[in-house]
């Protein structure tokens, strides 16, 4: 079956872009007063945008990248909005859910709680950088085998966290795994499958 939304997309535009644009248009139609206020404030923001662009050089999944970014951009927004690496998920955007977990120089962190400009010169690994070509990472395979997810939204963060959990030496038993994975929430409740996947890879 043809997806009507995708069929209607302009050439060269993605479904994501379409959704973003249509959301903005909806906002104009519904709350013109708010948009007007925002536009007025934006004069200020436009100035700031010019002023606060900063050069940035980061290695992402083994590839060196250079950008100019607004200083306010979080690492998470840089990955998703600029690089279109949308495997890293935005859950709460406040460090409470772990969906945005990535590795910086091999250590797991929450990408929503750091500014991109603070990561200049660092090596970032996202879920897209975990597999070796078409060969899945052992943790990815174990999540599939052990039923470590249901809806899948928290999964990239869970997997990045799980890989680090073992690398840190915090996967000696189930209790320790659960404690050191507590920064990754799963609303579907796939916790037992996740712990089993980690146990399997840790062995």
């Amino acid at each position, binding site marked *: 079956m043809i997806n009507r939304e995708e069929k209607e997309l302009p050439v060269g535009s993605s479904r994501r872009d379409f959704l973003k644009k249509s959301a903005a248009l909806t906002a104009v139609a519904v709350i013109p007063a708010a948009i007007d206020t925002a536009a007025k404030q934006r004069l200020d923001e436009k100035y700031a945008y010019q002023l606060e662009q900063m050069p940035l050089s980061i290695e992402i999944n083994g590839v060196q990248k250079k950008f100019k970014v607004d200083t306010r951009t979080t690492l998470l927004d840089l990955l998703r909005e600029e690089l279109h690496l949308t495997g890293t998920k935005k859950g709460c955007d406040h*460090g409470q859910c772990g969906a945005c977990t990535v590795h910086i120089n091999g250590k797991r962190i*929450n990408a929503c*709680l750091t*500014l991109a400009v*603070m990561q200049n010169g660092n090596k970032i690994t996202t879920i897209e950088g975990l597999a070796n070509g078409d060969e899945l990472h052992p943790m990815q395979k174990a999540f599939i085998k052990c039923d470590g997810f249901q809806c899948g939204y928290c999964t990239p963060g869970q997997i990045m966290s799980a890989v680090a959990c073992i690398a840190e030496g915090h996967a000696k038993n189930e209790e320790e795994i659960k404690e050191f994975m507590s*920064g990754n929430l799963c609303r579907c409740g796939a916790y037992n499958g996740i712990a089993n996947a980690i146990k399997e890879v840790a062995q």
Partner: protein
Amino acid sequence: MKPFIFLKAADIKTAQTGYKKNAASQFIAGGTNLLDLMKKEIALPGNVIDINQIAIKEIKTDTASISIGALALNSFVAEHAEIINNYPLVAKALLAGASAQIRNMATASGNILQRTRCPYFYDVAMPCNKRQPGSGCGAKEGLNRMSAIFGASENCVAVHPSDFCIALAALDAKVVVQTDVKESSIPFKDFHRLPGNTPDKDNNLAKGSLITKIVIPKNNFNKNFHYLKIRDRASYAFALVSVAVGLYIEGGKIKAATIAAGGVAHKPWRLYEAEQFLTGKTPSEEIFKQAAAIAIKNAKPLQHNGFKIKMLQNGIELALKNAMA
């Protein structure tokens, strides 16, 4: 997020020079609390000065103390052999806080400077004297289940959220601070403030000063100690009540005792009277029960947090028992 100027400082002097360039400057290290507050437009800095490159990250020991660099990561401190062996309360408290990801980002000084998680502080539609002085305290007559039972004022009933700080308070740490070229140190018990009439001030760190290290004196609380944290879920939640206890036992008697509680006041709360009661006595369940009863004597509940008093009493009793186990 409001626009800001981003500066990077490689040393303290550059950081403090950058700070003076804007009336609303803010140092950033881990950023795990600050960015959260900036997204909600609770923190509105004009200048953000990244201090992560400053070389104050090491842990150093000497015969009298251990010194934790201000920018040492929480995970680094919690897993440091010297901390685990000689200051285990610190390691236990750190591991009870936040998540593995956040501990990989958050620094020692950032931990002690983190702001309250009182829901009225975080909800910009609500009154909060800490966020907006003079707007009132929403929690005092509101949903105050998480609020203070000690040291609250008419203007603020918020609690300090840190676990690390409870261990530092119990171990009489001091905070070493640099202002321009002048170095000074603040005893931990005087570092954080009670809300009084100025709840917007969390602590006594002067504007523009940088914490360079946290020093913990050598102590005898590395054998009989316990950190107990009681929260709404098993992990990754702020404390309803937390208790750090240390007992120095010699010749079958308690030579010295330390008890600090978290989740109960605007600052880490030492329970000096209960400590004095224990000193010189032979440890027993009965003695611990009496000490716990003394500890809660001056607690004052609000409408929804009365349960914290019994929880603290039982928590102290249990922590003391566990310290002897």
